[in-house]
């Protein structure tokens, strides 16, 4: 299926969850918006991405 991730169109396998996407893209400590709405962290495991979703992922980068 095709989705938009951070303004770029990409292809993902079906039944892809947000948690798996984060792992595959190596986006540690991510904040995730799907179609403009932010997900809770507790939703990442179960949230299944759908065809045409507009996804934004930003890293919650700490200080140092």
């Amino acid at each position: 299926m095709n989705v938009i991730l951070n303004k770029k169109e990409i292809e993902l396998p079906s039944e892809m969850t947000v948690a798996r996407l984060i792992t595959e893209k190596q986006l540690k400590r991510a904040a995730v918006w799907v179609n403009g709405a932010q997900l809770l962290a507790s939703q990442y495991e179960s949230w299944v991405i759908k065809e045409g979703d507009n996804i934004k992922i930003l890293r919650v980068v700490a200080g140092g």
Partner: protein
Amino acid sequence: MIQDAKILFVDLTARQTKVEIIDGETYRKYPGGSALGMYIMLKNMDPKVEPLSPENMLIFAVSPLTGIPISGQSRMNVTTKSPLTGTAGDSQVGGFMGAALKSNGYDAIVCTGKADELVYLYIDKDEIQIRDAAKMWGKITGESEKLIQEDLGDTKIESSIIGPGGENLVRYASIMHMRSRANGRNGVGAVMGSKNLKALVLKKQSVVKAFDPEKMKTLTLNVKERIAANEVMVDLVLNGSAGVVDAHGAEGFLPSYNWGKGNVENYKNITGTTITKTILVGRETCFGCAIRCKSAVSVPGKADPEYGGPEYETIGTFGSYCGNTNLGDICEANQLCNMYGLDTISCGATIAWAMDCYEKGILTKDQTDGLELKFGDGSVFEKLIKKIARREPGIGELLAEGSAAAARKLGKEAEELVVASKNQEWPAHMVQMKPNLAINYAVNPFGADHQSSEHDPALMAPEDNQNWLWPNMLASFEKCDSYGILDANKSKFALETQKFYSMMDTLCLCQFVWGPAWQLYGPQEVVEFCKYGAGWDTTIEELQEIGERRINMMRMFNAKVGFTRADDNLPSKAFLPVTYGEGETAQITKEDFEKALDSYYEMAGWNVETGTPTEETLKRLGLDWI
């Protein structure tokens, strides 16, 4: 109730000492660190003194919590008037000095005057000696430490030592502890050098006991589980602060080429992950800390583990700032700064500025002692650092003043390339990504500092994540869903989290362990630590007010020197667009910055025209005595 504070005053000119007590009621308003230091300075010193004169004070301070066995409580603060910024000066160090100072029975040591020859101060509880250090002149920190141990015939000591950088009054000289821990910022080492004080040496003593050791166990017993459950802590244990290079590099916000870009090609050569895989030989700790984030690296011919390893900031300044991804050169620069006693942030950033000037033809080979200062070439670090530390005539003398003062000698074009606030070079966090830091870098009383407010990404965190929940224990914030946003919400975030960080610098807590977002322990646990550790029944509100009081004392100190809103500014490069991710752009504008600054001043209770705390604010904080 808080115990009384015991303060040791050392007059180096007269070689005399005296002890004064600050009662517990007063100490509760200024409970340690730079709040205590500022209280002592404002009561006893004219803010207009020359920073490198005998009249300046050099204050080493801890807090009622220091030395109580739990992670992240053994920082030692140094307060003085900074020779780099001309403002109230402040710097913190980890390691074992804080616990040793407290276990010797002192809450602060105040050094004034100037010894007639190089000396070191030795303290074994009530036995205080000012000892000859003439043979240590010009010696690097590691050698000096060995000479002190030989002189005392004792290795059971802790010491804070200056290197040639401090002796030669380099304006960003550090004070080094354990050869790898630094009171790095604000040039506190130069003040120590101006007093002919080579080292502060403390005899190791028994561990300080908590007020309620049983209750303390509710915070300490489950520490391994706490670490395992916190992604940032897991990364810190594995990669140290260098892990931030991975994140900033991947996102495209790693300040590079003297802040001209947000990334450097091959940044993966210098990430925390790469260091862990290639040159890391061990991790060291601070007193009582379970995290052990301090790295020790080995690069044959360039870096020895005894001088530690580069932290995130050092990888930034000697790495990406300089367009350099040679890890060996970064480690060598880190080691030389630790040997010679220079702040790695200001030193690396000043060299990056010089490279920028050289590339643009503002600095020529005639002015650099024949060195080619090109971005990407870290082979010049060794010569430059030694020239700076020794203040060798030419490029050494020029760069020893810091980038802002050096630029003023070269002219307008050079000044445009400086990335500093109040003369202090910026740490490696881009304001385009973290715009609340634009406010913080500008208003922070002792110059740009990355550890004086929480960083913006906490406002992006999911609402069921501690990064979002903990800051909202301090005040209510609005969500943020992109970089480059600078508005009143960010001003509020800057102010409220700045108060919290200011409180932590007062209580001398490590900001990797205690904090309002991603750390191991949060705001409510600071309250519990105060109660179980020191018998101090406090609240988050009282702690926030303590932090606010410290900031306002510093602002008043600066106002008396002559600092105004005009000094709360940003360098030109802060307003450049940064390209990140898939070609997106983040940028803040001057207009947004000025509006956000107005909001900050109004919320802080400061005069919007002058940036000075109003009479009403001072009265509210009990500071109308200033």
